């Protein structure tokens, strides 16, 4: 295993390596660079909304560019690469294989991220991360939107190559001693999201090409002036990105299954139902995409079908929550940083899930649709659940990667600031939505309630930001001069830690 700081190697050796731990490390470091960049964007947005009118950003189109790049960055350059990084580290260890099935392909998949990211960041488009036509065809200035399209194409290709690699590694390179129903649930979650990526992403890839030729004016797929239909793009887009929502979520679910039993010192309550819930969700997630489009003027039958499809995905998430709580119930729980983050994540998962059910119920959807409720809802999921659990797992992997222990006090501070910050920002945004504040606005009507809640949200965002600064300091300081970790059982939970004596990277 790479113990980077204890036995430093030259940088180029890591950069040009194809060993799974090196590629994993590159993925993880890249993803952390982008969560800090994307987070800084979010703080600028919140600072602008602290007071009504022009405060920080004088030009609304700059505001529009910032929320576009913030969204694209957080989804494709934070959640996806972090997942790939952790999976690179752990999947070969968990299925007992020497490396990924295709080490060179693995490295290629990683190295597609920097050019994709550069296109998105240098272009700085203003289309929103959804890039709905006709706006993205008629009004979005080039070359920003074109760069965004090509950036996303490259990132999508990277994700498809990575998925192929994970599917082959898990199905073909698994040690014969480990039957499928004995694989850790984290491996199951990676297998499931890899299949989902392969099934979902081609649709968006096609839509991007069509969007690009529409922008060139040679076709009119989505351009009503040329006989096209802009709603067709939304169908293609959400057919990819509703399953993608679960692609973002399920690795966090797998990580929680990894951490909850270990830190509760009890076996998983029901492994079988965990597997069933993951696999069922893989199928059902493809049946609810159009609930993002209920207000586009769909027929009553369509609305009913997609409401049922959406509700059908809820029991699986409920099964996971039940499984975690039942596993922890009566266990000797050790509240180290990883466990604190996982429990915070589960609490907010319940809140965002309940909000999701409310959203699905048809008449209510028209009250919340495209308001700040939606912003609050998906942030509570992506920040409150996914990112919190990712942070927890980062702390859990820290001794494996660096051979050192993080500062426990600072990790606690980081947790409480993130947890309280998330509640202050995202629950408040739910309520702002009920006061009908539209999303993606540079300014708002300052009624007393809306003003106060925007200010609470901004203060919460800065608490989150300070927590992230504490985290950054802790990571840098501890990997340079933290206490050496006891590598057999660094968290003193009486469980075997991951094997850190893998053969030297090639």
């Amino acid at each position, binding site marked *: 295993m790479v113990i980077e700081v204890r036995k430093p190697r030259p940088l180029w050796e890591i950069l040009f390596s194809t060993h799974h731990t090196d590629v994993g490390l590159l993925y993880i470091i890249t993803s952390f660079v982008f969560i800090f960049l994307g987070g800084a964007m979010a703080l600028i947005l919140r600072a602008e909304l602290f007071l009504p009118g022009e405060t920080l950003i004088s030009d*609304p*189109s700059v505001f*529009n560019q910032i929320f576009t790049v913030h969204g694209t960055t957080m989804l494709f350059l934070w959640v996806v690469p972090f997942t790939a990084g952790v999976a690179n580290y752990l999947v070969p260890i968990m299925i007992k294989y020497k490396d990924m099935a295709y080490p060179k392909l693995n490295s290629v998949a990683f190295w597609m991220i920097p050019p994709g990211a550069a296109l998105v960041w240098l272009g700085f488009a*203003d289309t*929103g991360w959804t890039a*709905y036509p*006709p*706006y993205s065809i*008629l*009004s979005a200035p080039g070359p920003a939107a074109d760069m965004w399209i090509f950036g996303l194409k490259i990132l999508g290709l990277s994700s498809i190559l990575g998925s192929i690699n994970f599917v082959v590694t898990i199905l073909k390179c698994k040690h014969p001693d480990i039957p499928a129903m004995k694989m850790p649930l984290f491996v199951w979650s990676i297998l499931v999201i890899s299949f989902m990526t392969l099934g979902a992403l081609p649709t968006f890839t096609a839509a991007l090409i069509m969007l690009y030729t529409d922008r060139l004016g040679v076709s009119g797929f989505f351009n*009503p*002036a040329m006989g*096209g*239909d*802009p*709603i067709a793009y939304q169908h293609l887009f959400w057919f990819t990105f509703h399953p993608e929502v679960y692609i973002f979520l399920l690795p966090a679910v797998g990580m929680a299954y990894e951490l909850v039993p270990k830190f509760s010192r009890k076996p998983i*309550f*029901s492994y*079988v*139902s965990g597997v069933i819930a993951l696999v069922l969700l893989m199928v059902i997630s493809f049946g609810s995409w159009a609930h993002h489009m209920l*207000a*586009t*003027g769909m027929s*009553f039958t369509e*609305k*009913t079908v997609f*409401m*049922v499809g959406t*509700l059908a995905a*809820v*029991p699986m998430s*409920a*099964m996971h929550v*039940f*499984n975690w709580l*039942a596993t922890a119930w009566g266990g000797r729980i050790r509240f180290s940083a990883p466990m604190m983050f996982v429990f915070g994540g589960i609490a907010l998962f319940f809140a965002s899930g309940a909000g999701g*059910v409310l959203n*699905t*119920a*048809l*008449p*209510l959807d*028209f*009250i919340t*649709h*495209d*308001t700040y409720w939606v912003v609050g809802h998906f942030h509570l999921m992506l920040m409150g659940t996914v990112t919190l659990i990712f942070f927890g797992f980062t702390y859990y992997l820290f001794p494996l990667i660096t051979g050192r222990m993080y500062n426990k006090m600072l990790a606690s501070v980081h947790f409480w600031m993130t947890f309280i910050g998330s509640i202050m920002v995202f629950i408040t945004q739910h309520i702002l939505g009920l006061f*009908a504040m*539209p*999303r*993606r*606005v*540079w*300014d*708002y*009507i300052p009624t007393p309630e809306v003003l106060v809640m925007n200010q609470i949200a901004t203060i919460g965002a800065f608490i989150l930001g300070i927590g992230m600064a504490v985290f950054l300091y802790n990571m840098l300081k501890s990997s340079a001069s933290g206490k050496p970790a006891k590598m057999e059982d660094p968290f003193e939970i009486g469980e075997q830690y991951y094997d850190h004596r893998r053969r030297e990277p090639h």
Partner: protein
Amino acid sequence: MSHTTIEWLYVGAVVGVLIWVGAIAWDAERLIGETPEDAITIKVTAQQWFWTFEHPDGTKEIGELTVKVGKVYKFDVTAKDVIHAFNIPVHAVMIDAVPGRINHIWFAPDQPGEYLIQCREYCGLLHYQMRATLIVEA
């Protein structure tokens, strides 16, 4: 009881709650989905970044819409350039204005006063101030 059985019983309870939520939502949506026959049709056209309303007698209003208490109105909503969304928050009227399509929604104002009409789908530079006033006369 085995752990898997307990889990399935719990899932059964969750499914029951969801069916209940789905059923009442479906029923409410069915009721509000039908436009009353005596509705007065108003054509709503969205464009960057203002609203145009056209009454059945051909009179047009820009940036404000005058209606009367006790009447039922049906909106034919469309857009000229990009996608917008026609929203009257107090009446929970919300439908996308899509170029090339005409979407329908109805409402019946019951209290006189001035209310907000706003755009709720991102439509570019001045999306944040794409508003109009709904004037309900007694």
